[in-house]
């Protein structure tokens, strides 16, 4: 089972066991992780599931497409080098992922 470690803006960490094939966003929302809103439910329309991916894990993820790239310019907290929209990050078996959620999504 993949495991996602969510660190919020205050530094507290939540560890969630996910399911392969689900997105990081779905994993967060279903378990009520605060800090990820995901109004559009994962259809790449709202940019409210913005996360920062810890450096070691960033390279292991599938690269972003143009739409995600443009949407990231509209996030509530400004994007950084390691910004992604978590609805686009699919979990794989055995994967550990460390991400930080921004202070606000809207």
């Amino acid at each position: 089972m993949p495991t996602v470690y969510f660190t919020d803006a205050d530094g507290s960490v939540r560890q969630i066991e996910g399911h392969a094939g689900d997105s990081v966003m779905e994993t967060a929302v279903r378990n009520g992780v605060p800090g990820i809103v995901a109004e559009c439910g994962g259809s790449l329309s709202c940019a409210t599931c913005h996360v920062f991916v810890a450096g070691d894990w960033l390279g292991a993820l599938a690269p972003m497409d143009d739409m995600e790239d443009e949407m990231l310019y509209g996030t509530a907290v400004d994007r950084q080098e390691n910004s992604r929209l978590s609805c686009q990050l699919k979990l794989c078996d055995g994967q550990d992922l460390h991400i930080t959620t921004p202070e606000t999504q809207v």
Partner: protein
Amino acid sequence: MNPVTDVSTIASPDRPDGSANRTGLLIIGASQSGVQLAVSLRALGFDEHITLLGDEDHRPYQRPALSKEFLQGKVDKENVIFRSADYWNEHNITVVKGERIERIEKAPDGSGTAFAASGTQYPFSRLALTVGARARRLDVPGTDLDGVVYLRNADDALDLKARLGKVREAVVIGGGFIGLEAASSLHSMGIAVTVLEYGPRLVGRAVGEETSDFFLQAHRKRGLDIRVDARIVRLVPSADGRSVKGVELQNGGVVPAQLVLVGIGVVPNTELAEQLGLDVDNGIVVDRYALASDGTTVAVGDVANIPNPLPGAPDGERIRLESVNNAIEHAKVAAYSLVGRREDYAGIPWFWSNQADLKLQIAGLTLGYDQTVVRHDEQRGKFSVLYYRDGRIIAADCVNAPLDFMAVKNVLAKGQNIPAEAAADPSTVLKTIATDG
């Protein structure tokens, strides 16, 4: 697939007299707004028991994918479930499925009892109506034929999916968001689709003429047969008289179809509110704090007629919004209200619709617009329309143009403006020309 863990339900009454235990808040409607209301109340520290009750036999789920990813088989039911069973249990929220409330008795202090069709009674201290809307029914001969379907809830979508194997030709009645999303989904699955729109243009209720024209051209180019100003005489039965085989138009032609999908808007579910004696006028009339006319019941989301929430909108202007974003933001207002706080609607209303490779994002509300500016970059496939009222930007429709959408949403949130003259050049980056005041 995830393991399916069902949430606890009150299938049988808790007490011998046929009633459930009294709940702190009874939320009728396990919808986007009902779920958000429960979640927001817990975030605000509301510590009484919450019952989230719905009339469908499904755990609370998200509707938007039903006409798109779910219909196309790209996501399954587990992907659209809102929250895990553990979440509800940990937060002292009881989810009740498959229970239809027929009648409510209420005292002036806001408490009362809801009576379900099953005979179970649900006593409550406070009441929230998040009962949404239902698909408007088509009124022509032949709508009872097999193969005539609607698309509002999960059962509709499951039924529709089960039929598709036998369908070569489909007619979609209604060129609004649901109709065009479903038409695009069916077309992508190899079905020949004809869209019949009664009005002179597509999505006439939600977007301006320029955007309607853009979608008409774009969809025709992608292979949809779209007819506007279409007048339907009847749905034509097959030889055995049971199934639909086509749609007859006033000009005498018959469009062949083994499936007729009707998407002609929704009707707010106001029956319970009417029975309670609440003010109803195109939905349940609520004040700025989501309170209905009795001063204690909150009504939230698609069913609520609310004051125009756009910053700077004229006093007294009202609107009923059918959107995920409104369900969420309005639920937050109602949650504050229920814990005794008065907070204004936050954020800028926004909408989205995905049709084939066309991603439409709308920021703001076009109510009262008197000027538009079109930005069309044909080479890059980007198209936006900016809407103005008295020289101030109030909304934008953006197709495959997320930067425009984000810029307008941010400008509206900050109370800024985008000068119309400077916006017309599609190569201009909108956020660089925003002006204060």
